[in-house]
Each structure stands twice: as C-alpha cells, then as structure tokens.
C-alpha cells in the first residue's frame, strides 16, 4: 500500500498560534499588535541581562530561544555598543493626537446606515501609517503627524457602497486601509488635505463567501488577512498559494491594490495571475466584469486599472481567486555557492530551464552571515560538532572563501515523487555552478528569517540602528552589476553623509522570471553622531533608487509606488503613460474622494 501522505502543516517555518478572526470591530488588531513597531506585541527581539539575543513570545519557531551569536554580529556589523540605547516612547500620548475634524451630518448618516465608526485617538493613530522607517521612527519618538479623523468598519460590499455615496455627498476624503503593512508611505495622510479624512478599514469584510470546486475558485471579501484566508482554505483541502512575506498581516484587497507578489509565485503565480474577478466600489459606481471567463479579449483588461491603483480609485470589496488542492509534500533545501556570481548564474540557468522550485532565493554573503547570527543555541554537543564539520568541509575541503560564499534557499512543493525528481534536477544544475547541497535546515531557517527580519528592525532602533528594505526587478544580464553598484552606492552615500560606521548593505535575489529577477536590498546603519538621521536615511535610499533606475532596474517589483516613489513615475511610465492613468482617475473620481494621493 502507498505510504500515507505526510500531514501537511501550513507554513512549517514558524508555529502559528490561532489568531482569532476579528469578528468584532472593537476587538481590533491594535489590541494584539504593536502601535509603534512591527507585528505582534508579544513577539520582539531583545538583549537580555546577560547580553544575549532573545526572541520573545510563543508564535514563531524562534520564539523563546536564545540567540548566542546575535550580539557579537550586531556590535561588529554596526559598530554599536549595547550601552548606548535609544528606547521608544512606551505608550501613545493621546493628548498629542490632533482632535478629529468631523463632518457631523456624514457621521450621523453613517450611524443611520448602521456602519461602525469611531474617532478614538488610538485607532486613528494606528491607521495613520504603514511601516516605512520614517513612519515608525516618528512613532517611537512619540511624534504624531496628520492622522485620519474617523475610522469606519464596513461589514460588506453594500456598506462600502453606502460609505462611498456618503463620502461623495459630503466631500470627505476616503483612505482604504487593509492590513497596514505598506512600505511606500501609501497610508500617510496627505499634509495638504484639508477635508475630513476617513480611514476605511476593511477588516470586518473577511468572509469566504463560496468555494467553487468545479472551477477551483474561491470568492472572498477583500478585507481577509492572508493567513486567515490560507488557513480557512486549508481546512477544505485547498490553498491559493499566494504567500507574500507580509501575509501574516496583509489583506487580499491590499494585494490587489498594490500588485502583490508571493514567495511561491513560480507555482501559483503573482496576484495578477490569481485573480479571476474583482469587484470595486468607486465614486462613479461599482466596476466589475460580467463573467468569470479565464481569459478575455475585450479591450485592455480593466483589472489592470484596479490592480496597482493603490487606493486612488476606490475600494476593492470582493475578489474571486484561483485555488489549488493542497500539495501532498513540501521540502526545503539549500545550496552553498563559492560566490554570489556563481549563485546568480545558477538561478539564471534554473530560470532558463523553467524548473524553478516553488521558491528559490539567493542571499549574498552578508546575509548568509546574518543568518548565522540568528542561529539559536544548539542543544547538544553533537549538533555543534556537526556544524563544525560542515563548516570545515565547505571552507577547507572545498576551498570556499568564507567571505565570498553565499547560499540559496529552496522550497519544493507537489507530489512526493515529483518533488524528489525536481530536487535532483535543481541540485544537478547547481553542481555545474559549483553549488553544494547544504541541507534542509539551512533552507528552512532562510525562510524563517524573512518573517522575523521585520522584528529585527525594532531591535536595531533600540540601539541607534535604522534600516529598511527595498526591492526592484531587473533583466538577468544586469542582476550582478545592479547588485554591486547599488550596494556600493549605499556605502558611498553613507560615508559622504557622515555615517561613522560602514552601513550594512546587502541583497538577495528573491524571485526568478523568464526574463529577469526580483532583487531585494537590506540596508541599515548606526546613526550615532548624526544630527538628522532620518534625513540621511532618506537621501541614501533616494540615491540607491536612482542607482537602481540607472542600472536598468524597475521602480518597484511589488511594494508599489505610494507617495515614496511618486517622483519617478513619469520617468518610469512616460508622460503619455502617466497621462493615461491620470485621465482614468479624473473619470472615476473627479472630486478626488479617494484622496490618498498615491501613485500619480
């Protein structure tokens, strides 16, 4: 008899603790999440009294673990000392929140329509920002800028229709809010906005409305959070396979509005490949297609006006998405390469042969070392002995230079036999580029890193370290040049702007395509001695983006434009292109009700 399929646990990279679906507006996310940092309040990095790194809470695999090498890595990389602390303001000073500018009849009519609303200051502050460095930095210092005047919680599509009608009637500004994980300043209230700003929180629209097993589609309300969607589908034996790194917190509507990309896009596709039907409420009315045909030739695809519109045209309320049966088998893997160049060549070959696993990512040497710093304390002498042996084998026996080698992490998915076959194919290609298989554990840890790295930024900010990640997509032949030039540009700009210690400037290739790759940069530095660290930070990021564009990279692969990257839009899509987008905006929303001023 065939062996029983292994029990699949969704996302084995960390342990999930059932996270109640937010049925009631009053039990909002803000109760379990930080108001001035990333993620769950109970999960954070800290250095304990002995100076050892530690990750608190119970939610992740790393939770409750001691990380013995973190301190040394941290101090050596940033030239900081644990003596010098920059703690955050512990609690929100409610009196610093500007009083709400309310349009009374609007609020009254909402009440009549039965839409939940609140102008409680904490809730307004919580929805006034995304997770750009400057946004979090300001909150940690207790600085509160312009915040929405009112938060509303529609329960369904029809509530949204009502809200938009009322907003048009009273000329208030609507800003859709999904998961709040934006890193493009998209959620910042425009300073020039004088109207009442209403944050439209979609979190209550989080139901799966139906599953169609014949066509393998699911119809969902757009406020659902990634992990909830995936967990609930898993219960029925399905998944969407869309797993952006932010999926613990980001929402379906947000994915659509920003053209999100998931880690496993090689099997399941990016959001534009996954959606079959979208319903969006605009000031002109509801936009949707009349059928769910899998492909149409009906002029330019109107979905492409919606995807990437970043909340400037309306609110996405319902989405039909493709689903797939849960894969029977998952396997992690990793490959060590003698250097980054070989690694990129290998990924290119994998893409050429179109045999990329569900996910394949290549970290540069700095990130590889960073990954090591996050290794938890090993429980047995045997494990540490084994680790030592591995290191000896790679560096001494195989002659890999420890300061050049880099690692690719892999995730295979499918039926068991095919996964094993596929795995062999990929490892055979890797061998041609000097790659050595480096075990499942390393692979798994690599993916875990993705989820905790955002928490690490908060730790850095406790000790004078600020940083951010940003991404681009670039043709294959320019990947290496772009990575080298951007990293060097960051180092150079930091030096010129008086940063005392060389910055942490690293990258990884996170997605492969037929014609190019997605590259992610991490960049952080120690800001002691700088009068205006945020300004320095912003200039350096700006210069890094200039360098990306000069080297043939795109303005964004999946983070979107928001307000942070608006200045380059004309260059990115040409004047005519920008004019096209503007004319759509003018038709759909002539009074700029959706006035977050992203993108255009």
């Amino acid at each position, binding site marked *: 008899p065939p062996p029983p399929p292994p029990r699949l646990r969704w996302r084995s990279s960390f342990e999930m603790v059932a996270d109640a679906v937010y049925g009631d507006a009053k039990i909002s996310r803000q109760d379990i999440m930080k108001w001035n940092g990333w993620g769950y309040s109970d999960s954070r990095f800290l250095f304990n009294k002995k100076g050892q790194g530690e990750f608190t809470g119970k939610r992740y695999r790393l939770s409750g673990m001691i990380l013995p090498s973190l301190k040394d890595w941290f101090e050596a990389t940033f030239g900081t000392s644990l003596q010098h602390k920059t703690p955050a303001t512990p609690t929100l000073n409610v009196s610093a929140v500007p009083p709400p500018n309310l349009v009374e009849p609007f609020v009254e009519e909402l009440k009549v329509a039965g839409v939940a609303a609140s102008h409680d200051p904490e809730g307004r502050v919580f929805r006034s920002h995304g997770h750009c460095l400057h946004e979090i930095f300001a909150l940690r210092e207790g600085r509160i800028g312009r915040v929405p005047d009112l938060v509303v919680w529609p329960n369904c599509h029809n509530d949204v229709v009502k809200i938009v009608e009322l907003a048009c009637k009273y000329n208030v500004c609507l800003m859709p809010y999904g998961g709040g994980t934006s890193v493009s300043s998209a959620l910042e209230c425009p300073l020039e906005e004088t109207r009442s700003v209403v944050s439209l929180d979609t979190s209550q629209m989080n139901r799966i409305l139906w599953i169609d097993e014949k066509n393998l589609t699911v119809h969902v309300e757009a406020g659902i959070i990634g992990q909830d969607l995936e967990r609930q589908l898993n219960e029925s034996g399905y998944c969407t396979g869309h797993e952006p790194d932010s999926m613990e917190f980001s929402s379906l509507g947000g994915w659509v509005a920003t053209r999100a990309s998931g880690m496993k896009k090689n099997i399941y596709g990016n959001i534009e490949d996954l959606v079959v039907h979208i319903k969006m409420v605009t000031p002109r009315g509801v936009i949707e297609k009349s059928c769910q045909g899998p492909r149409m030739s009906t002029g330019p695809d109107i979905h492409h006006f919606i995807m990437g519109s970043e909340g400037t045209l309306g609110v996405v309320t319902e989405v039909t998405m493709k689903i797939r049966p849960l894969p029977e088998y998952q396997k992690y893997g990793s490959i060590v390469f003698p250097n980054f160049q070989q690694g990129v060549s290998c990924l290119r070959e994998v893409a050429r042969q179109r045999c990329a696993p569900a996910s394949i990512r290549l970290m540069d040497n700095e990130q590889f070392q960073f990954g090591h710093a996050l290794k938890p304390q090993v429980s047995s002498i045997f494990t540490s002995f084994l680790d030592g042996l591995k290191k000896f084998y790679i560096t001494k026996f195989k002659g890999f230079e420890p300061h050049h080698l880099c690692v690719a992490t892999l995730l295979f998915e499918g039926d068991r036999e095919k996964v094993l076959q596929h795995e062999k194919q990929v490892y055979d290609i890797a061998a041609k580029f000097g790659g050595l298989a480096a075990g499942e554990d390393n692979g798994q840890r690599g993916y875990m890193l993705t989820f905790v790295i955002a928490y690490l930024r908060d730790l850095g900010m406790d000790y004078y370290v600020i940083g951010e990640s940003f991404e681009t997509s670039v043709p294959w*032949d320019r990947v290496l040049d772009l990575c080298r030039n951007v990293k060097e540009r960051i180092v150079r700009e930091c030096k010129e702007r008086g940063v005392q210690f060389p910055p942490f400037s690293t990258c990884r290739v996170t997605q492969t395509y037929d014609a190019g790759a997605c590259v992610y940069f991490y960049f952080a530095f120690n800001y002691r001695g700088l009068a205006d660290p945020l300004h320095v930070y912003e200039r350096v990021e700006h210069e890094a983006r200039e360098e990306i564009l000069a080297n043939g990279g795109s303005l964004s692969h999946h983070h979107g434009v928001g307000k942070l990257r608006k200045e380059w839009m004309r260059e990115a899509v040409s004047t005519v292109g920008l004019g096209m987008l503007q004319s759509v905006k003018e038709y759909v929303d002539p009074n700029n009700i959706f006035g977050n001023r992203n993108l255009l």
Partner: protein
Amino acid sequence: MASVLYSPRDPGLKKRDELEDMLEERRRSSDARHALRCYAPAVYKGLAPREVSALRGAVLQSDALQHVIGQVSAECGERRELVQEEAAHLLDEMAHRLRLGTVRFFAYVLSKVFKTLFRSVRVNEEGVQRLQQAIQDHPVVLLPSHRSYMDFLMMSYILYTYDLALPVIAAGMDFMSMKVVGEMLRMSGAFFIRRSFGGDKLYWAVFSEYVKTMLRTGYAPIEFFLEGTRSRTGKSLTPKTGLLNIVMEPFFKGEVFDIHLVPVSISYDRILEESLYARELLGVPKPKETTSGLLKARQILREDYGVMHVYFGHPVSVRSLAQGRVKRSQYNLVPRHIPQRPCLAAQALVGEAAFRLVRLQEQAMVLRPWTLVATLLLQNPDGMDLPVLEEQAAWLRRLALSFGAFLDWPDCKPCREVVGAGLALHKNLARVSGGRVRLAVAETPGVGQTAEELAFDRAVGVLSCASYRNQILHVFIRPALLSVALRTANSSRKDEVYTCFNFLWTVFSNEFILCPGASVQDFEEACYLLGKCCAVQESQQDIVMSEGGHATLAFLRALLDPFLQGYQVVCQYLCKETEENLRENKFVPAARNFALQLILAGVLTLCYEALSSDLQKNALAALVQLEAVTKVKVGDQVTLKVNRRAASSLEDMLGTF
C-alpha cells in the same frame, strides 16, 4: 572629486605635492636585485583572476564581439567561422603578453639607462600612494602626457619600482615593425593599435572589447595618451576622444561602479627627440622606427638630459563627472553588448573631460627656469646682455608664479646660477659670448649651403627653442589673449574687449588647450590674473591697462606674435593659391614653401615658426571651423575649397592685432 576638474579661480593657490628623486635609491643599491626583487602589487578589489589566455577567450567569446562578427558575416556573406578567425587574428596582432621576466629585464636595463640619461627622476610619492589606493578601489585609467618615447617606459618603470600594478598600454602600430623591441614591449604590457581603422567595424569591435574587458575585470590599469601622439612642439595637443569614449562606456552602462582617470604629467629638462622634432615639423619625414635605428640612438646616452619630473595627479572619478550630466538609464532598453552611439550628453561630457584632463596634465607639468630663458631669448632675437637676461628672468619668474605656474626654481640659489645652469644644459640652443646671450643659430651660410638650407637650419634652432617656450604657454595663454584684445578693442568696455578676446580665443582654439565653450570662464580668469599682477584695473563696466602694466602686457602680446603672424601667412597663402582643388595632403608643403619664399625675400624676417607644420595644420583647422575653408571629400581624396573673401578678411583681422 569633480572639483578637481574645476580648478579654483586662482591657480596659484593650488597645493602641490613634494617631489622625490626615485633614482637616488637606484644609485645606492644593486639594479639586479631591484629587477629581481619580490613584486607583489596590490590589485583591484573586484579582480576576477585572469590569465592572459583567459582574457583572449573572454574577448573572443564576448557577446559584443560575437554580435559584430555575426553582423560582419551577414554583410559580406563570409562564413562566420572565417570572420571569427579574422577577429582572433586581429586580437593576436593587438594583444599584449605581459610577462614578469621581461618586466624584470626592462627594470634592470632601464635602471642603467635612466641613471645615465638623467641626473634625477623626481616623482610625487603622495600621488603614487593615491594611485595605489585608486587601483584597489576602482578600475584605473592612466593618462600621461606625451612628449617622448621615454614616457611609457618611464611610467611602467616607476610603477614597477613602487610596487604598483603594471599598466597595459595602448601603443601605435609603428612600434611593431621593430621586431625584437616590439615583442619586448608587448611582453612588458604594450598592446598595439592601428593608426587608422575608421570604417573597419570588426577591428573596432575587437579593439574596444579588448580594452573594456580588461577594464571591467580590473585586469590591469589601462594607459593611453589622450593627445594621441607625441607632441612635437612642447604644447599639449588637442585631445583625441576615441579611447576615452571606450573606457568611460563601462561606467555609463553600469558594468563597473566607477572608473578613475589619473592624469600624469611628465616633463623633461631636455627632450631626447628635441632636434628630431624640429626637423619633423619642417617636413623632414620621421624616421621609421627600426631596431637598428634605436641602436644608433646610443649616442643619445652620452648626453646630459638633466632632471625628469613625473607628477601623478588626483584621480578623477568618472561617476562624479557624469553626475547629473548623463542619464545612464538610456542604456536600459537595448542589450548592452549591442553597440550604441553615445547620446549627445555623453559625447559632450567625454569631450569636455578630455580637455579638462589635458589641462590638469598641463597644470602639473614641472616647469624649469630654462623655459623662461628660452621665452625671453625668442622675444629678443638679437640677443640679450646676460645681466639683463637674468633680471628679466627674475621678473618673469614672479609673473609666472603669480599666474600659478608649477615652476621649479630653487629659492636658495641666486638668479645668476639658475639661469647659468639652464644655459649650460642647453648649450646647443643658446650661446653665451662676450657677456651676451643669443640663440645658437647660424648667422651666415656654411660652406656649400644654400640660402634655403640656411633658413631651415635657423628654423630648426628657433623651433627647438620654441618647444621650451611652448611648455610654459599654458600659464600665460589666457592673459596673453586678453592683452592682445585690450590693445585692439575699440574701447575699454568689457563687452567689447570680450568680443575681441572671444575672436582670438576661437581662432586659437586648435593651437592651445582651450576647453570648448569655456571662453567666458577663460576671459574671467584672464581678467583676474592680470588684475592680480596689477597689469589692469577692472571696474564694473571697464577694463583698462594700469600705469605699471605696460611691461607685462607687452611681454604677453609678444608671446602671441609668432602665432598671429603664422596664421596670417597661412591666410595669405590660401588667398594666393591658384589651384582650384587643393588636395589636403598638398596643403602643408605648399604653405611651408610659401612661408619660406617670404622669409627668403626678407618680407618675413623673424617668423620661422610660420614654417612649422603644426602651426599650419592648426591654422587650417581654425579656418575650417570659421568656414573660410571647406573640406570636400571626393573618393579617397580630400580637397580644400577656399572662401577667399573670408580668408582674406580673417587675415586683415589678424593683422589688426
């Protein structure tokens, strides 16, 4: 870094490094040990280790070359393999084969040679250190000035001595005909390029890919001469931008983070080729480089060539130069291996950079007191009493210094000694008799010498001497143009003076290193310098000669006289030329003959420089630029169409100055 190119308004304020004699060590210790010592230079941090053979493969297999091979094969219907072979052949003809053994041999021989030729070779060691750092950080391009064959031997020798990575050097093909020496140069890092290959697509592709591959991989510093050839006149030549375009392209296309251009100024007390150059300028063809010819040059070894100076300038970052000027994203839409014509902004940038770099070379050239003496002697063809000469030299020294000249005039020694030392070293050019100094040119014809030969003989002396005066012209050129303009302008109003200045500036833009488009800056610099030495007074609107300014202005005007006269002669010639279709290659001999006739007839007495082919060519270039002459290409021939009215009015204008 960009500020390096935009020197402060007052060049006198520029700080310069100290120079040390690098031969001193060689005179104290064994040359053999020096040649055999451990040589382990610091290399480029991103160096992809590469053997010479791997380099060949990388070039031949490169996408860029393969693309052109495909094109050429399609265009001429040749099989691809044949074109590929042809490319391999071209590469082998071109490529260097750097071998340490040969380098050590050269290190030994050159130690001996240099110690014999030169009293000392002085190098700014701070510059060497800067270069060492630059080589590790970025691909480096070395851009020495070019006055002598010694230049690149000396460059490699210095880099070897200071344990720096040896450069690969772009050399003219003419060396290759010297069989043994050609191969030896190849093995010490020279690669050979044909003098002209304008239309040859394949050759261009092989050549540019060869250079770019070496640059991208950080294989070795690339060295070439911006001036393209040795300057026969002592003046810097208008830079050629072809190679500079090639080496800057990897930056524009993002293939490297940055490229550092290092100007190097090499100056000689006496140039080995001194009289050879003068003869060349007068039309005695240049001897073909042959090995036996080089051996004959042994007699050169018996002479004293004084001191040689090598000044390594600050590295100029291409990234800084291009900042805000060139949009690199223009290369985003075409694969980078497909040749693309650089955009106008990039072309302009490269052209401008070339001029600025040559100016940086000029400004760091060490000038010896003799250059001042030669200048004075040329202005006083009847000779000068020694005390007067000394006095004038001291005066000129102060003027030059206030203009920012990099003058190596020992402070501690009395003027008499300094001038005396120069006269002694250059006794072939100037004679002292009865307390009077004059140029060493024949007074009366020798036995069996025709008047024509005598004139040429004199011209050799004058042109040799002028090659030293020319070394210092870059210090005076802008104030000199202003001095002439001041005398000619209708009023002292600044705008009128500027109009005159600009006219002269345009006419002489091929003669001197005047950066295109910078005439206003040059005018301001000239006003500032003349104001600084109290020769003129400036007000809001006007600029006038000050009371004590006469001597300075007269001297500066006299500096330009030979050029003004020479250009007039060329204009006259063109007006009188009856040949309707004057072939371009006939122009120089005919113009020279015309000038010679004027000299023999006694019309033109003191203007031997009008015989110089360099001046004639520069004048022609100016006339073409001013549209007094048009070049017409008919088949392989280029003919000159003269606009007589324009040429004659230009002559009249020059006559007014």
